[in-house]
């Protein structure tokens, strides 16, 4: 009797073990293939069938399924040329689960609406998501994240349809996000290339933002973010950093932002940031700053801009050092009569002093606001006199005997050689 009990107990535990083993085997992540001739012919049915952790593999082809809602932890991966077409009706992919991955997909033609922010890919209230190597074409918004955390947006191309005043959303849009990494993306023809609002601790690296109708990159009310090694070119303005603090801007290129209201970099009400190693090439204004305090602006190159810098009188305690100012029409425009910022040891190509003691530092200070810059600031139309003999004489006489230009605003130790 006893032995029988033992055996049955053993049998039972064996049974429990084997069911456990089997269920583990079945609950293991599986791949579901989707293609017109597959068992699963639509993305929606595959999502319905999938369990958390599964991968859905889309084979080459075009899928037209309207709005696709993902509420499970799955990966949607394209193999070959996979096109998901929204037919200009609705938002295309909506993600509302954590740990979702989208990879190798071409997503195109969202609807457009005034009251709803339509996006090709929308990720709302999610964590640990990844959007990788996707191509988003003709989306009103491209990739839209709200209340997202710890996500990667990497290697995507987002190409909008905005030409000029056309209505369009942003290529990559972050709203109330944290710890988002955005790298190696190509962003064109949208309102802003990348837009961050109330989004902190994000990293934006090696992106290429070109031909957007407003900004290449735009910060609003966002803190502790870093952007590094990006190129912002031919946008209406390069980058706008507004109402944000502790933003680090390293090794970026701001180029060819031309036009009446164009800038390479616009700073408005921002504090305690770092701007280093950037190149400002052929912008109407390199850096335009208003109400900007305690910024560290060092080792940047300002090459062939209209104004290298326009620093409003409302800016305080900023330090400019080790920058190269090369062939700019104006080096520094300002409406300030005094100087509340520090300029030291920069190279100014307009500097005309000597270095008799050969210590590499000019013997007399350099005043980057010359008389003409001052005149243009007061009376913009006087720019028509640029490069005339009359103006050159005026500049010279003002240099000898300064009366109008802010004399306190100067670089006491201008460098004789450009910083390498």
């Amino acid at each position, binding site marked *: 009797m006893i032995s029988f009990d033992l055996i049955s107990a053993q049998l039972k535990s064996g049974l429990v073990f084997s069911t456990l083993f089997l269920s583990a085997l079945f609950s293991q992540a599986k791949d579901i293939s989707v293609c017109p001739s597959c068992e699963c012919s639509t993305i929606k049915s595959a999502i319905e069938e999938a369990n958390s952790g599964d991968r859905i593999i889309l084979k080459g082809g075009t899928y037209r399924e309207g709005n696709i809602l993902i509420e499970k932890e799955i990966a949607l991966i394209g193999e070959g040329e996979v096109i998901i077409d929204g037919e200009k009706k609705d938002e295309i992919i909506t993600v509302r689960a954590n740990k979702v991955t989208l990879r190798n997909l071409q997503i195109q033609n969202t609807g457009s609406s005034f009251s709803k922010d339509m996006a090709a890919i929308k990720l709302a209230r999610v964590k640990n998501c990844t959007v990788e190597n996707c191509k988003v074409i003709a989306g009103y918004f491209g990739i839209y994240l709200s209340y997202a955390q710890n996500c990667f947006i990497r290697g995507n191309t987002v190409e909008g349809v905005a030409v000029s005043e056309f209505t369009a959303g942003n290529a990559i849009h972050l709203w109330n996000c944290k710890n988002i990494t955005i790298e190696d993306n190509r962003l064109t023809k949208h309102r802003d290339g990348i837009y961050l609002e109330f989004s902190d601790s994000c990293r934006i690296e090696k992106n290429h933002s070109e031909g957007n109708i407003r900004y290449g990159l735009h910060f609003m009310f966002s803190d502790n973010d870093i952007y590094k090694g990006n190129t912002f070119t031919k946008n*209406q303005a390069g980058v706008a950093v507004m109402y944000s603090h502790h933003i680090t801007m390293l090794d970026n290129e701001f180029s060819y932002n031309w036009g009446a209201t164009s800038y390479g970099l616009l700073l408005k009400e921002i504090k305690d940031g770092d701007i280093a190693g950037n190149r400002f090439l052929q912008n109407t204004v390199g850096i335009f700053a208003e109400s900007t305090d305690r910024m560290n602006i060092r080792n940047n190159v300002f090459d062939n801009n209209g104004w290298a810098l326009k620093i409003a009188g409302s800016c305080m305690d900023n330090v400019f050092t080790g920058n190269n100012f090369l062939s700019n029409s104006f080096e520094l425009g300002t409406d300030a009569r005094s100087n509340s910022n520090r300029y030291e040891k920069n190279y100014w190509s307009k500097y005309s002093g000597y270095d008799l003691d050969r210590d590499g530092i000019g013997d007399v200070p350099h005043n980057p606001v010359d008389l003409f810059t001052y005149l243009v600031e007061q009376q913009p139309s006087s720019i028509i006199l640029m490069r005339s003999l009359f103006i050159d004489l005026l500049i010279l006489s003002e240099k000898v005997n300064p009366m109008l230009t802010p004399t306190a605003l100067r670089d006491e130790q201008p460098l004789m050689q450009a910083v390498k």
Partner: protein
Amino acid sequence: MKYPLLFLLPLLLFGCKPEMQPLEFGHDQCQHCRMTIADQRYGAELVTKKGKVYKYDAVECLANSLYKDKLVEQHEVFSLWVIDFSNPATLVDAEKSFYLQSPALPSPMGLFITAVSSKEKTEALQKEHGGEISDWKKISATVLKQTKPHK
């Protein structure tokens, strides 16, 4: 034709009349925050008695510019305009409009203020998105206090 430019004379008379100008989206710059005005659902404008026009990307910027920075004196204001959310890219009288402050409708300057021309449409929006309705006086006071709606 003794005076070939005489026909231009009447134009001079019109030159100083204070008049609203439509916003040029994607081109005009906000007087207050320097941002390019791009969202056709949001925007504002101030016209002075002398006919000078200041354009804004949002109600927040108009209120801050007028009441906080005091860009122009109160008695110099001819008219105030806001973009009607229910009729994008169209400016309507700011003082006769209604303002919905709802966390579901983010405006360009972070205070979630949406201007709508008619009361019925504002209430319809409120039904859909929630939030609080106020008039110009109340909303500009809200802007000066920088209070965000509750979530």
